[in-house]
């Protein structure tokens, strides 16, 4: 175990930045070349990230310092298992989403495609920076870039509704950014550093009340992107964005960046020991339990498919935070793994919503009767994703929920086990009727009762993610020791205790 200095993290961030510039200058003149840049960058990025995995699994830390920003803080990448997990997840799903995106925007003949691909690449660059950040300030820098780069994707449709959603998104996230900044400044003025350390670095600094205050504003700040309830309002509105955006950004990159920020604060800034001492973990767990239950109820009431998915996302993000808040080995392991498994499952569900929209221009669940006969592959993938979200084996959602359930027991808090189980039942309640009506109900008049799928550029990606969800459910280590990365992270953090 040791620290390895390598420029690879920087390259992983820069490759998409360069691609973004190339995309911008290629523009509409040569669509194929422009899309080639996207695909090329996504593959290069993924290979760079993957090439670092073996080192991380051996317990090493990969570090690269770019420049000193202020005394005690550098613009620095330091990759450990948690960051690596997020990095692998986001960079892998970007490849699939890129293929899907190309199919989506071309079938719909979207306007402003250059802007769309440009901002997508910027977002991925920022996400990678968040995953690899070595300290709070570096994380914050990329977090703010992500905020701004996502905005044009939210207002993409440029309808009245989309513009309002964009404004709402900015108001929520920029305000949250200021809260985070304030928290970081307080930490810096207390300790003179913001470097992440497994197990936290804040214990013994400042009075209990100021630490509590810092914790609250940081969690609320990151909680906005993680769409913790009462701060979630922007996410359902942002569903006006094109579906690939909702899929990758509003199920994986952006919202997971918020969750990732929360995990970093819980595990790497405060640390289990200090949170126990301040009694904050229980408060946090009750706070997100509220989100879990209420968002499930909201999801039941939605008729728009993407909005229902959005509330399900809110629900699952809160579950991840709750798992981590248990501060027990299984809880943390499950929480980290759920970031990945939820990513695969939810991206499948969003891909399905997009495929249906492209083929039939339907957005509402009530219109989907019998659609399974027309698009069996798509709806089959939907069934797999929905089962996974509900935690039914053999889909990977089961594994992460199992560990989180164990985590609640290890912490001796049976209440949270019930929360977890209730939410799983709600998942069934709001997803399974869709499966039922799409396959077994009498088809609507406008459904073509024979095989008529969306373009293959869209169907293949969603099948790939669905199949991976199952494979990960049976062999969690199937791809690049996915599960091991999560459990090393948990071990490191609690090793600090």
């Amino acid at each position: 175990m040791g620290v390895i200095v390598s420029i690879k993290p920087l390259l992983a961030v820069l490759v998409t930045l360069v691609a973004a510039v190339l995309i911008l200058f290629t523009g509409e003149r040569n669509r194929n070349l422009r899309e080639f840049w996207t695909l090329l960058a996504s593959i290069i990025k993924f290979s760079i990230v993957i090439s670092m995995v073996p080192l991380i699994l051996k317990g090493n830390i990969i570090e690269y310092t770019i420049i000193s920003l202020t005394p005690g803080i550098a613009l620095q990448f330091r990759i450990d298992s948690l960051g690596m997990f997020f990095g692998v997840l986001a960079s892998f799903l970007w490849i699939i989403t890129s293929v899907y995106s190309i199919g989506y925007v071309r079938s719909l003949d979207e306007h402003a495609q250059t802007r769309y691909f440009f901002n997508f690449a910027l977002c991925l660059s920022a996400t990678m920076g968040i995953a690899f950040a070595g300290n709070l300030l570096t994380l914050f820098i990329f977090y703010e870039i992500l905020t701004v780069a996502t905005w044009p994707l939210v207002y993409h449709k440029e309808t009245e509704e989309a513009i309002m959603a964009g404004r709402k998104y900015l108001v929520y996230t920029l305000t949250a950014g200021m809260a985070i900044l304030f928290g970081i400044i307080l930490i810096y003025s207390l300790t003179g550093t913001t470097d992440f350390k497994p197990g936290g670095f804040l214990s013994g600094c400042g009075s209990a009340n100021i630490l509590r205050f810092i914790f609250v504003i940081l969690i609320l700040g990151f909680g906005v992107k993680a769409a913790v309830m009462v701060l979630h309002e922007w996410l359902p509105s942002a569903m006006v964005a094109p579906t690939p955006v909702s899929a990758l950004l509003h199920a994986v990159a952006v919202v997971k960046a918020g969750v990732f920020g929360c995990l970093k604060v819980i595990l790497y800034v405060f640390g289990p020991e200090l949170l126990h001492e301040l009694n904050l973990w229980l408060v946090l767990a009750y706070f997100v339990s509220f989100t879990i239950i209420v968002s499930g109820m909201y999801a039941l009431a939605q008729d728009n498919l993407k909005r229902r998915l959005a509330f399900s996302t809110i629900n699952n993000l809160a579950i991840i935070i709750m798992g981590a808040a248990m501060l027990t080995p299984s809880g943390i392991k499950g929480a980290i793994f759920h970031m990945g498994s939820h990513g695969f499952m939810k991206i499948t569900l969003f891909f399905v919503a997009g495929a249906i929209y492209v083929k039939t221009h339907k957005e509402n669940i009530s219109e989907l009767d019998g659609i399974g006969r027309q698009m069996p592959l798509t709806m089959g993938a939907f069934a797999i994703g929905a089962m996974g979200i509900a935690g039914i084996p053999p889909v990977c959602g089961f594994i992460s929920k199992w560990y989180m359930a164990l985590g609640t027991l290890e912490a001796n808090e049976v209440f949270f086990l019930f929360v977890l189980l209730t939410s799983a039942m709600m998942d069934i309640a709001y997803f399974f009727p869709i499966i039922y009506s799409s396959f077994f109900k009498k088809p609507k008049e406008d459904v073509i009762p024979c095989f008529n799928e969306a373009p293959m550029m869209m169907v293949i990606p969603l099948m790939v993610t669905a199949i991976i969800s199952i494979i990960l459910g049976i062999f969690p280590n199937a791809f690049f020791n996915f599960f091991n990365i999560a459990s090393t992270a948990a071990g490191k953090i609690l090793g600090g205790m």
Partner: protein
Amino acid sequence: MIEQAPVLIVVIPLIFAFITPLIGWWRKELCYPWIILSLTLSTFCSVITLLTVINTGVIHYHLGGWLPPWGIEYAVDYLNAFVLVIVSFTSLTVAVYSKKSVELELPEKTIYFYTVFLLQATGFFGIIVTGDMFNLYVFLEIASLAGYALIAVGEEGAPMASFRYVIMGTIGASFYLLGVGYLYMTTGSLNMADLARLLPDLYGSKVVLVAFTFLIVGVATKMALFPLHGWLPDAYEKAPSSVSALLAPLMTKVSAYVMIRIMFTVFKPYFSIEMLPVTTILSWIAAAAILYGAVMALAQTDLKRMLVYVLLSEVGYLVLGIGLANKNGLTGTILHIMNDACMMVALFMIVGAIVYRCGNREISQFRNLHRRMPFTMAAFVIVGLSVVGIPPTCGFFSKWYLILGAVDTSQWVLAGVLVLSSLLNAILFFRVIEYAYIEPRGGHDNGGESLAVVREEAPLTMLIPIISVTAGIVLLGLLSGRIVSTVIQFAIPACF
């Protein structure tokens, strides 16, 4: 040659200014390269001066060989060497930029414009480089008089705005001069270093107290600190584009420098902080200025006028850092002198470019501007993000230090004001970006590109300065750690 650099910074543009009309009568088109040459030389000298200061420490230059306190002394330490470089680079950038906009806006007056432009720069350089209180007054007036003239040649209503500025500016200058007079009465000296040595014994004297107050009020008027800002919005809005681009970033920054000089060099920091509670008062006034500027900017429909109010808010930032009077706060102010000079010069140049192409500054008329002027608008986005304080642009880092300074002294309200103003700035700039970038369409129309817009980018002499300053804004942000550790930390009084 190198040891003459401090004086050359001032002398070169002064002499060049007087030769400009002669050259102009001979060949009108030579004026432009002539002032570029002059400002390039000054910039070169100021860079040399900064390097010399970094390598060998404070430079003392005695004009005509007369020793202080009798002769005039130019004293260059880290603080003014740093500000000199900023001011010289900014004036050079604006000079390059001015070509097309002057041809369009002042075709008859090009020669005189460039003459006064150089005098204006001379005034700024002199204020910064001098180590003598009265000499500073002289240069302050050179800068101000040049400013009155430059503003008065602007659009309709400019003479009136300039006249108002003349009155307020003269009142400010009189306050400053009275202050200097009182100091001379009590100590018999005008040299800053000498005053700093003589004054502590006299801190109890009412004359000294009044002198100090007059000096601060005078400088505050010149820098348009709320509530002494009345002259500024009209003056900078109605001025020609390149004049606003020169004056808006520099006049306020130079005055902020003078304020730091008076409060922490001429007077000892403990006098400004404890004996008279000036810093406390200033920090609250600054907070009011920040909010006032941002709120007034919200109400504007004209982009240039909006920027003028943003400028008032930025003045608040500068003074807030001075008022916090601790290491981080003052670091924030000095860093912000650089950052804000870059941001404001970029913004006013961009407005000038938009006016040049579209003849119109109404924000609501900006539809499709991102396709008409893609590079200019991309620059606007980046600079706007910097004003809002989105990292890694440089605006973020000055905010970082200022908030840190407020937290260090437990001034929670002031920290809150800084945070709030960031959000107000976000509304301001995203509103403009929204107008320029979003093309609203009804219903679910997904059809290809809407109506074609001819790309009509600003001329290269405008575009290159805009793009380079914008690139500088990102680079200076990333390099701010380096800048603080090599220059700024030595520019702060030792006792902080």
